[in-house]
């Protein structure tokens, strides 16, 4: 189990409401003839922290990229906060401005300073006045503990710092849901902790989160549900304690034995 989590997680604000945040029904996706996502059914309630695990190529990243339409699904329904994702551009814009996303390779804009990275979308998408956007950005940069780097360029920061900026950048849009696509996979071991800490802090404040990650320690400490995917389908989902201690499916057992090791 990962040693990255070494503090007590405060569960007091993590409350799951009955309001549906994301509703996926019968969703299917193909790349050409390759069936990447098969009959996905998933309902995420507000305040849930979901970790999606699975071997590489199992479709986990594709699934969360469908949620903000970076990938287009071909059949079924996805609705986010009551907005159905169709090819209607207005709906797509609405969903994207309410869903934040953090990528494996950060994808910060290298030609803009950290602060400009954070204020870009609020100014141009939300039409926030610059001053206000900057104040918000500084607030979130303080939250991810790098306010002093605000005027540097992404290239001048370490990987961990960059990923925290990426998180702050998403938060500046005040999203209702955060998607994390393997946020720690491209980081050196000593930097994973600082990013996970930020994510835990976010969870403690009650953010709805879906994380694709291999950090099983994070899953145990924070998630209220773990989903295991293989070959484009959801194989098993359960509470973390059940999932880790009492896996039902053979595939899950095999995966856990490989990933948790000896």
């Amino acid at each position, binding site marked *: 189990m990962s040693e990255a989590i070494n503090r007590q997680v405060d569960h007091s604000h993590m409350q799951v409401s009955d309001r549906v945040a994301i509703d996926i029904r*019968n969703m*299917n996706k193909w790349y050409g003839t390759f069936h990447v996502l098969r*009959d996905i059914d998933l309902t995420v309630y507000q305040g849930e922290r979901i970790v999606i695990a699975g071997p590489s190529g199992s479709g986990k990243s594709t699934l969360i990229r469908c949620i903000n339409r970076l990938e287009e699904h071909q*059949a079924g*329904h996805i609705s986010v906060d009551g907005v*159905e994702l*169709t090819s*209607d551009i207005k709906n*797509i814009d609405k969903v994207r401005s309410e869903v934040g996303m953090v990528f494996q390779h950060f994808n910060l804009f290298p030609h803009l300073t950290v602060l400009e990275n954070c204020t870009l979308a609020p100014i141009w998408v939300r039409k926030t006045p610059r001053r206000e956007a900057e104040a918000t950005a500084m607030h979130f940069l303080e939250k991810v503990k790098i306010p002093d780097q605000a005027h540097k360029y992404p290239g001048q920061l370490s990987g961990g710092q960059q990923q925290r900026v990426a998180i702050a950048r998403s938060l500046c849009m005040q999203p209702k849901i955060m998607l994390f696509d393997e946020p720690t996979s491209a980081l050196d071991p000593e930097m994973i902790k600082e990013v996970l800490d930020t994510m835990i802090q976010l969870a403690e404040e009650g953010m709805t989160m879906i994380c694709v990650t291999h950090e099983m320690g994070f899953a145990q400490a924070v998630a209220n549900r773990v989903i295991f995917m293989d070959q484009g389908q959801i194989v098993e989902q359960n509470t973390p304690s059940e999932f880790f201690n009492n896996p039902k499916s053979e595939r899950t057992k095999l995966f856990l034995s490989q990933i948790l090791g000896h």
Partner: protein
Amino acid sequence: MTDVSASAHASFRPSMLIYDRRYRSLTFQVIVFILVMAALWWLIGNTISNLNAMGKSFDFGFLFQRAGYDISGTPIPYTGNDSHLRATMVGLLNTLIVSILGCIAATILGVAVGVARLSKNWLFARLMTVYVEIFRNIPLLLWILVIYAVFTEILPAPNAYRGESPAWSMILFDHVALTNRYTAIPTLGMDNDPGSLDLGARVTVNWATIAFVVALVGGWFIRRAINAHAQKVQDRTGIRPATLWKNLAVMILPSLFLIWYFGLHLLAPSLQGFNFTGGLNITNSLVVLWLALTLYTAAFIAEIVRAGILAVSRGQSEAAFALGLRPKRTMNLVILPQALRVIIPPLISQYLNLTKNSSLAIAVGYMDLRGTLGGTTLNQTGRELEAIVLMMLIYLALSLIISAGMNIFNSRVKLKER
């Protein structure tokens, strides 16, 4: 069962033409299509009414009429009684001749200069840098005019070579004479002329030429076979048989034999009366254009070569040395394959540029495609529209052929990456 996306069920609304991703691009493309068609319709309509107003038609029949003008220096037989089509062919061949000669010379000079710029010799590297910067930053037209002025203003008339103690003497062991009208170079003579093959349309090829081509191409294929065999032996036994001498032999011996068989020898030009005869007198317009294109393009090629070599990181050769490869093998197996991948595409686009720049022949009166079809033919027939359209299409075809070659190369050497 899966069911289709919800939006497909939704009834169609006009606003979806703009706000629905599936229809928006279609809407946009339809608008652009209509605009483009309207523009074309307008242009073609204008052209037709302009042609009618001038009493002209759009027709390429003029190509088959008598040209009635002479061309100096033709690669295939041509007289003023031939058609405009044949004049066009002469022009095209002249364009190809200067382009091909230019590409070859520019490559040799460019590679040499590019490597020299990387030389550890401070003085020589600086000199080459000066050459590259001067030629790259001054218009090609200036170089053409300067070299032309050198040839016409400084070089003497042929009779300066006459007399007991002539004012000028021939260079390259009395084989080449530079004059202000032409450059006399040696030509090849045969004791044992096998005659010519008639290709029709008064184009003939000497059998000896064909024999040499066959010998070289055959030799090249045999060389490939020898190398393939060596590779097989190496794969089986681990030891590569020496191929160098065998390769040299199959490449050179047949040609040597043919030289002996046909009794091939150089015929140096000599001054008879007011002119050089016995050799080949090349019109100075070709020599000037060739020199200028070569010097100008070589400067660009030198930069490409230099950048290509620098692009292969030092780590690559260190890794190869660390594996125990010797420098020559490192060069052949590791450095060159990577450097060539960087060098060849821009090199070929330089060939493309050189071919297009050869149209600056207009400055020295060399009768290339622009000079015949786009020059005299155009002026004599008054068919601007047809002549320029045809000329552009021919240039376009040349370019597309060269870039097709480049694409084939690119797809063969593309780095396999995920």
